[in-house]
């Protein structure tokens, strides 16, 4: 496993030892905590030898066990405690190794964190980040792999951020920590191994943005997030060979995506596909389409489509998983059908892509 170890703090400082997305999260923690002494980092397993897939490696050594600590398996109390810290001058970051575990803290997230600023008439904000990792694949099964981003995105008062590329992971995490509101920061586990060398680390984070356009094209607009944006970006690159222009908008800010640029893009392409790794029912893709339709009804050449996960839980068996999740291949095929064309030899092209694309997550948990 490509993880930072506890001796690697110096190297982290010097920008060495950053090889991937997971290291980038550790670097973002490191930089946030170095420049802001009110930032705290805790969560179940935060200081164990694996440091949450390496994403919190070295932090305890550098910042001490008052600022960085392991917790009891008490998600609701830990979230409440984080809120209490946040209303008392601190900026806590609480990490869940699986999004699924955060479900034991829904009261604190929805009834307290999301409401505090509102229900007390704007007197006290809650600068809190809750990191949740979506652990799809390797037989994680029905209760260790859920992508419930649209749950959180429906709650006023929460911000929901899902980064795609490693540098976005770093920057958006920095911005989320600096934000005065509760931010649900969701990392797809498959992103953790994506390469990044730490170039472009900053002293001061920027304000949280809305969306990024990551590919340009005039035939179809894809709006996606997280790993879906990575795959869509790959698909856009592959389809360039077929002279198909895919415009990909990475709508990483799930409650506050940039509807204007999405609408502008759809006005240009006349086609819209959403890509989101969650159940399709009531998904973010559904919301995006609902917002685009009245704005671009006359521009649309075909009906908008969604790529998402089936509306039933994922079974653990490897054989089920491989059909449950989608990939770049499925995005290319979907575009093929939406454009009503055939891409010659696309299967060979995709096979080559598949063998060149990195292993993403090889267990055991």
């Amino acid at each position, binding site marked *: 496993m490509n993880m930072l170890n506890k001796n690697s703090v110096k190297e982290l400082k010097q920008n060495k030892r950053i090889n991937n997305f997971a290291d980038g999260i550790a670097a973002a923690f490191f930089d946030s905590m170095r420049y802001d002494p009110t930032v*705290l980092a805790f969560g179940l397993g935060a200081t164990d030898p694996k440091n949450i897939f390496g994403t919190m490696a070295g932090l305890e050594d550098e910042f001490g066990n*008052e*600022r960085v600590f392991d*917790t*009891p398996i*008490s998600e*609701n*109390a*830990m*979230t*409440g*405690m*984080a*809120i*209490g*810290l*946040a*209303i*008392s*001058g*601190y900026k*806590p970051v609480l990490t869940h190794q699986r999004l699924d575990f955060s479900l034991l803290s829904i*009261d*604190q997230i929805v*009834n*307290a964190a999301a*409401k*505090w*600023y*509102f*229900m*007390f*008439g*704007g*007197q*006290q*904000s*809650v*600068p809190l980040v809750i990191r949740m990792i979506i652990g799809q694949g390797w037989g994680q099964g029905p209760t260790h792999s859920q992508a419930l981003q649209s749950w959180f995105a429906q709650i*006023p*008062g929460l*911000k929901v951020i899902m980064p795609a590329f490693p540098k976005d992971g770093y920057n958006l995490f920095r911005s989320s920590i600096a934000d*005065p*509101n509760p931010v649900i920061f969701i990392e797809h586990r498959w992103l953790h191994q994506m390469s990044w060398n730490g170039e472009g680390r900053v002293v001061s984070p920027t304000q949280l943005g809305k969306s990024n356009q990551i590919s340009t094209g005039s035939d179809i607009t894809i709006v996606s997030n997280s790993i879906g944006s990575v795959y869509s970006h790959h698909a856009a690159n592959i389809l360039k060979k077929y002279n198909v222009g895919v415009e990909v908008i990475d709508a990483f800010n799930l409650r506050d995506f940039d509807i204007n640029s999405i609408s502008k893009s759809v006005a240009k392409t006349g086609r819209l596909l959403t890509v989101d790794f969650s159940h399709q029912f009531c998904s973010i893709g559904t919301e995006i389409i609902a917002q685009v339709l009245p704005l671009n009804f006359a521009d649309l050449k075909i009906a908008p489509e969604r790529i998402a996960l089936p509306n039933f839980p994922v079974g653990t068996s490897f054989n089920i998983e491989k059909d449950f999740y989608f990939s770049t291949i499925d995005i290319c095929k979907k575009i093929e059908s939406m454009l009503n064309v055939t891409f010659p030899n696309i299967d060979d092209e995709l096979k080559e892509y598949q063998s060149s694309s990195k292993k993403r997550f090889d267990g055991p948990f």
Partner: protein
Amino acid sequence: MKQEPITIEDFKEFFSKIVRIRTIEQAIAERYHAQEMKCPMHLSIGQEGPAVAISMQLNASDKMLSTHRSHAHYLAKGGNLTMMISEFFGRETGCSGGMGGSMHLIDKSCGFEGATAIVGNTIPIAAGVALSQKLSKSKNITVVCFGEGATEEGVFSETLNIASVKNLPLIFFVENNSYSVYSPLAPRQSINRHITKISEAHGIKSLKGNGNNIEEALAISLEATTYVREKRKPCLIELETYRYLEHCGPNNDDHIGYRTKKEIDFWKSYDVIANAKKAIKELGVSPDSLEKLIQENTKEEIDNAFREATLAPFPKIERSISYEYA
């Protein structure tokens, strides 16, 4: 903040404060029928003792959090009366800008950090407030008030555990009025379950007494606050008490029969104001003129608060949109 032994002055202060709170709560109950305070209201009448006893041991920099039934806590801690009443009237000038109502009170100027309406909700939040005091090496402490019903929530036990693990300067302040809405203790808690034993099992010093008994309430509050301040460790207090009115609303609901007459009569004969009066008399001071004076002063305060509240503007919906994000 009083750390020295309890004196006659403490008794008088306690008495004055419970009389003030009851007078206010009764005025709210009386005026509630005008239907201008359009929000659920959990009055503290009968339960003033615990709130005042603990607050007398706190200063404005100590923090307090509470629940749906928080008027007495808010007032005892020093919360602004006009802003509380304005909140009930849903006005822009309310302590929560009209967004919270009776169940969401806050007055940060006196360390009342917030009360929320989900049972058990503020218990872990108070642990975070206490942890912030620990991390910033503050000398202050945090008190979280809640009913015995909230001890049935899992988060109560979770928070006892973390408070003990982290040695938080936190007082778990349980007001046991034997009821959750209409439900008595029997279907909710085994008779072999003792709240103080749950906290003791987590290594937390735990004290229990009768909150309507002035000596007991004051002595326990003093002991607990002294301990938490000096030892920087958590403590749990359970004070028994009784609410006189319905769970939610301004009326008496004794006729619907979920509480026995015997029980009601017992508690009314053990009223905190009557008890305090007796205790003061025994110390050779007549409480009657003091009571009268407090009632008169409070009435004036109340009239002013209600006048200001009803003159204040209502918030517009645009304002509520602006409170979505900081």
